[in-house]
């Protein structure tokens, strides 16, 4: 399958890590710019207007969410994909809520990251197994309390998320559930939307219950 080359800006404060990502990405993704801080990243992204920004959750002068919030208004076409070593749910949820289209851990292979960039560029969501786990956790409480504030997951969405958490790829999930790959994509995008639209209060409560904040 031939794919259009996607232009990517890489935002991470570790030179070594940026070099590693650059080397690992395949030919269909071109790194057009790099930044190591929020202050450098914001004007750079506005200037280059890339397809996708690979964004570290932690930056020395603020979090990845700060970059999204300063850029998204002016450059609505730019998609963000969070990339982090952090294991902490609150770090991840914050960038997702700011508008990132997904979250992958830094242990991801170059090929998978390339795939993820294309998927995000096409407007889809990218869930790593860990993010799927966090999201299932976030919506779990709602099962019994049926809080109207938090849009519930449909059984199908839950099923898809569980398979992602188990380490299945989208294509494998589609085959397993007898769905088209597009349908799996749309389920995942719907979950992301619910996560981003759910009331702030609800997620705060969720985080507080897990002693995250």
């Amino acid at each position, binding site marked *: 399958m031939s794919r259009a080359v996607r232009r990517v800006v890489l935002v991470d404060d570790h030179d070594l890590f940026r070099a590693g990502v650059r080397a690992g990405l395949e030919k269909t993704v071109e790194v057009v710019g790099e930044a190591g801080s929020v202050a450098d990243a914001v004007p750079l992204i506005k200037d280059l207007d890339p397809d996708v920004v690979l964004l570290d959750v932690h930056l020395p002068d603020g979090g990845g969410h700060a970059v999204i919030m300063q850029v998204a208004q002016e450059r609505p076409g730019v998609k963000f994909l969070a990339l982090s070593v952090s*294991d*902490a*749910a609150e770090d991840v949820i914050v960038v997702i809520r700011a508008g990132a289209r997904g979250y992958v851990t830094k*242990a991801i292979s170059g090929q998978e990251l390339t795939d993820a960039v294309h998927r995000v560029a096409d407007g889809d969501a990218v869930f790593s*197994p*860990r993010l*799927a*786990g966090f999201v*299932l*956790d976030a919506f*779990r409480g709602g099962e*019994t309390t049926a809080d109207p504030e938090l849009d519930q997951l449909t059984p199908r969405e839950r099923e898809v998320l*569980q398979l992602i*958490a*188990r*380490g*299945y790829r989208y294509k494998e999930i589609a085959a397993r559930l007898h769905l088209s790959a597009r349908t799996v994509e749309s389920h995942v995008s719907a979950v992301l939307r619910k996560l981003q639209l759910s009331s702030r209060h609800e997620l705060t409560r969720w985080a*507080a219950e897990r*002693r*995250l*904040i």
Partner: protein
Amino acid sequence: LSSFGKLRLPFVQRTAGDDRVVAGVCSGVARALDVDATFVRLTFAFLAFVSGAGIVAYLGAWALLPSPDEAQLGRRRHVSGLLLLVWAGILTLGGVGLANSLVWPLALVAAGVVLLSGRTFGLSEKRARLVAFVLIVVGIVIFAGNNTRGTASTLLAPGSVAVALLLVLAPWAWQLARERERADLAARVHDSVLQTLTLIQKDPADARRLARRQERELRSWLYPDRASAAEGTLADAVESAAAEIEELHGVRVDVVRTGNAPLDERTRALVLAAREAMANAARHSGSEEVSVFLDAGEEGISLYVRDRGAGFDLTAVAADRRGLAESIRGRMERVGGIARIESAPGAGTDVELGLRA
């Protein structure tokens, strides 16, 4: 012209997170001062023995410090907090041995000086000056009346020793706490990170396993109660089993989990069966990554072990492969659980273990 706003300590907040014990006062103060919370707690505890001053001071601070979700304190809380702190100060001075005849005049004069220095507590400037004047005069009169025949030694002897001791020891204890923290960090980096880097240079073949072990150790140290589950729980046991398999076989075992459960006979069997499934994946699949998903809810517990490796033909498994039959199926069945194994050559293996609640 109210000056109440000025008295707020904008940088000190009570904390609400896991490091709070009662109301988050000590950890809040510790955070603002950038010292160990234990040090602040010990200080409050020590003051508590000084005629209860620590307790009163704590209550005062509780009232006076906003919690993270409070924007503005009420006037009543502000005043009561201040009064409690003043009371605590008086108790402390009395407690370390200063005679009452000195403490009360001191408090009155101090209040007068504060009023004169511009904090008018809502009074008009003229009236504030008048009140200050009265306070100072009354303070001096009481002092003079009580102590015309007293000598300096009877007033100060026991107290001054205690105060001097505090002044000398406090910065030292502070310094000690900070240095211990730094030494701890240096030791940690030396013992683990530097050692690992040295080992990797000697034997690059082992780099992956060493790096992964290092990553795990650093994570559990950096995020003690975020990244790893509470000790003695199911999730904790699953994570330890995954770590052991990584260590033994040099593959990456990623654990994702939602929910948790206590360890009992049944969940222990589940962990052992899961460990066996992980070991099989690591040994036979040839895949460098094994995914584990633990889903512990009210309806029951499911645990999945998935690899994307060689897979195998289930019907062709020799009867003597005890791993699958005994260690996984038998173990689950004995505790009333189920084990489902899906595999096909080239398609990887998926093991599902289930326990009903």
